[in-house]
Structure formats: C-alpha cells, structure tokens
C-alpha cells in the first residue's frame, strides 16, 4: 500500500507545482519587458520543426481514411457522402488531436530537452544571477509560441488531410476539386469548426507549459535531461486527451 500512497502524493504535488508554474506564466507574461525577438524566433523554430511531419501525417491520414471508409459506404450506397463524412472527422477531431500529439512529441520533447540541459549546465541560474528574468526569456516565449503555432498547424493539417482525401476519392471516381470541397463545407457548421479551433490553443498551451515545466525542473545529470524530454511528451499527450474530452462536453452544451 505504501508505494501507491507515495505515488499519489508525489502526483498531487507535481500537479500543484505545474499549476503554480502555469499561473506564473499569466502573472509575468503580460508585463514588460517583452522578449519579442525571442518569441518570433521561437514561433519560427517551432513551426518549422513540426511542419514536415505534421504535413506528411495529415496527408496520409486523409488518404487512408477515405480509402478505408469507401467499401462500407459503397455497401450502404452512400459513397457520395464520403467528402462530408471525412470532412467532419478531420476538422472536428482527427486534425486537431493528431497534430497536437505530433506537436507534443516533437516540440514538447525538444523544449523539455533544451531547457533541461540549460538547467543542468546552470545556464538558467546564470541568467538569474545576472538579474535578467529567465522565466520571461525562456518559458513565456516558448509557451506563447506553442500556443500560437499549433492552431496554425492544425489549419494547415486539416487542409492537407482534405486534399489527401480528395485524391483518394479520385482514385475510384472523378470528382472535381471544387465539388469535393463544396460537399465538405456544405456539411460543416460553425458549431463544428469553432470549438475544434478553440481547443487547439489549449493543446498548444499544454505542450508549451509542460515542456517548459519539465525542463525548468530537470534533475541534475544527463539522465535528468532525457527524463525531462520524455515526461514532457507523456504528460502533455495525456493532457491533450483530457482537454479534448472536456472540450467535447462543453461543445455539446451549445449544440
């Protein structure tokens, strides 16, 4: 009984610490001095790092999803509904969650490792003792950049996925580009799009703040850095699913 009890205690402890860390983001993030240059650089780095993998995955998912849906749709004689169905699936759920998970893997781990190695080599302490604010320079910029970039990546991923789906449809029949997208958008209401878009900001924030928290509190040694990178991915992925679950409930209320 002792182990689970200790585990629960450290889990709750860690959760509390993470919330305090996130709170500090809101306390410090919106007061000068603003690290604009570093924020812009981080946006670029974060977007650039994750774009290829996001694009590739999105394309393949769109393509494969459509091909695998097709036989059952044909069975029911509703293959004309494929664009509508794939559109809903991608825009509401697959696009956001898949992109967010890839983002967690790619960006969460790289933020965790970068800040972790800065922590263990005392670079964060060095910023602190020179009277500059490492939290602003490192945490605020990265978290904000992750929060802003993920929604953009999701929009791109949705578009690429739908394009993949359009190609898959055209493997079997001829459907013009315009008609395909008309079918997709005719079936999409604001209530489908807006909540799906809003939740991606929360996904991005979760990945950024968890990566920063894990890096900032990295244990000494090279092992600590690896651990930070690894647990950033695990924790932010779980958080993404939890946020998704909550977002669905909230969206239901407005339906």
């Amino acid at each position, binding site marked *: 009984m002792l182990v689970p009890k200790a585990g629960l205690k450290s889990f709750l402890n860690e959760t509390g610490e993470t919330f305090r860390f996130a709170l500090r983001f809101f306390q410090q993030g919106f007061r000068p001095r603003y690290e604009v240059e570093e924020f812009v650089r981080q946006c670029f780095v974060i977007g650039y790092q994750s774009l290829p993998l996001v694009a590739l995955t999105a394309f393949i998912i769109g393509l494969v999803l459509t091909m695998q849906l097709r036989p059952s749709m044909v069975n029911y004689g509703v293959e004309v509904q494929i664009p509508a169905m794939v559109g809903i699936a991608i825009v509401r759920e697959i696009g956001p969650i898949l992109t967010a998970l890839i983002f967690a893997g790619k960006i969460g781990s790289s933020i965790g490792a970068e800040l972790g190695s800065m922590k263990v080599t005392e670079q964060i*302490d*060095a910023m*602190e003792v*020179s*009277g500059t604010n490492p939290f602003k320079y490192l945490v605020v910029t990265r978290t904000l950049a992750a929060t802003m970039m993920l929604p953009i990546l999701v929009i791109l991923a949705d578009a690429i996925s739908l394009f993949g789906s359009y190609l898959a449809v055209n493997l079997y029949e001829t459907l013009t580009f315009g008609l395909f997208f008309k079918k997709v958008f005719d079936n999409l209401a604001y209530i489908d799009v807006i909540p799906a878009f809003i939740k991606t900001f929360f996904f991005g924030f979760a990945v950024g703040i968890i990566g920063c928290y894990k890096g900032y509190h990295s244990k000494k040694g090279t092992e600590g850095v690896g651990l930070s990178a690894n647990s950033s991915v695990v924790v932010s992925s779980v958080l993404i699913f939890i946020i998704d679950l909550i977002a669905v409930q909230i969206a239901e209320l407005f339906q």
Partner: protein
Amino acid sequence: MTEFVIKIEDLCKSFGDHHVLDHFDLSLIRGENLVVLGKSGSGKSVLIKCIIGLIEPDHGKIQVLGQDILTLDQTDLDHIRVKVAFLFQSNALYDSMTVRENLEFPLRRHSFQLSAEEVDDMVMEALQNVGLEHTVDMMPAELSGGMRKRIALARTLILKPEIILYDEPTTGLDPITSVEIITLINKIQEKYKTSSMIITHDMKCVKMVAQRIAMLIDGKCYAIGTYDELSTSTDEKISAFFD
C-alpha cells in the same frame, strides 16, 4: 575605516540531515581579494550561491552592499545582482548563442538606453580585458576550456560589477591556463577596483590572489588570516591544506 560589502552572519543550510553550513560567519571588505578555502564537498558552492540568492538558507543573515538579500523582493534583488557578478564553476555560457550574444544578453536587459554602437563597444572592451576579441562571433562549443572560462569572466564584467564571486575559477584547467586566469583576476581587481570572493581548493591560486583566507571546515569559518599566518599554523585541519 573598513567597509564591508558582504556580511554573512550565522548562516545555516542543511540538505536533509546533512548540515552543509553550520553557523557560518564571514565578511568581505571593499577592495580586497578574499579566498574561501575548503575541500571538495565542504559547501563552498552552497555558500556562494546563498550570497547571490540562488539557494535559500535555513537560517542567518546576508548583507550585500548594505541590503539584506533574504528580505528583498525580486526587483530589488535583481538590482543587487547587477552589482554582484558570479563566475560559475561550470562557466554556464549560453551554448545556443555566440560569444557576442552571450555578452549582450545581460547588457541589453539592463541598459535599455544604450545604442547599438555603445553595446558593441562594451562587448569589445569586455573581450579585450580577457584578450579574446577574435572569438566574438564564435560559439562557446568551439572554444577551449580556458577560453570559455575567460569568456565567462568577460560576461560577468560587462555590467561593471562592484563585487565578483568566483566559484573555483581554476578547477579543471591545466597549470599554465590556471596561472593565466589568476593573473587575469588580479588584473581585473586592479583595473576596476572590485571586491572579490574567490572560492577554491587550488593552493597555487590561493598564494597568488589571496589577501585574506577564510577556511571553510565542518560548515564553519574555522580560521581566517593571511597566507603567512595560516601556512605556519600548527592546527592539523589548517596545515593539511598547506602541505
């Protein structure tokens, strides 16, 4: 009259039941080079990190330039930190930035009114002090250990500090480079009239820089005196360092 720039009273710090600092007292006089001597793991780094506010002590009082740093809020603490430079044992250079960016980092965040040329001049002056102007656009990873130490020193100098805390400035360097660094420490003290606290267990370093030596033994300031006074001591714990 002697003016104290750092005054430590009754400082205690434990990790678990390991009492690293145990009622430690020490003062740094303006303009002097004070060496804190202690064996590895005796708590020298913990001491120096308490002074700069990186580690919070369990008990005691630390006055830096007349202000009690344990009661200061973040803004005032940052003000003090500009006047007190800290040279890390590990150098702690920002490894994703060039040498120039390393030096500019504190400067840009404290002296907003400086023009680009002024920043550049100050960077070059700091590099000149350590004789490494040519490395300005290199990355820290491209430099040797001794060069990195000197760049780290240049970075601590850029804000024109009144006090410099050195954490084992010669550890891990070869004897010749060590002497270069020590010479540099003396040169900087002469040029900028800084007060320095140098932490070390390197006796050659002690002999070359120390005006006073404090012995950190068993978490206390065990003895304090000049090199000549301490090297002739008959106390076993002290003489062990001077053999």
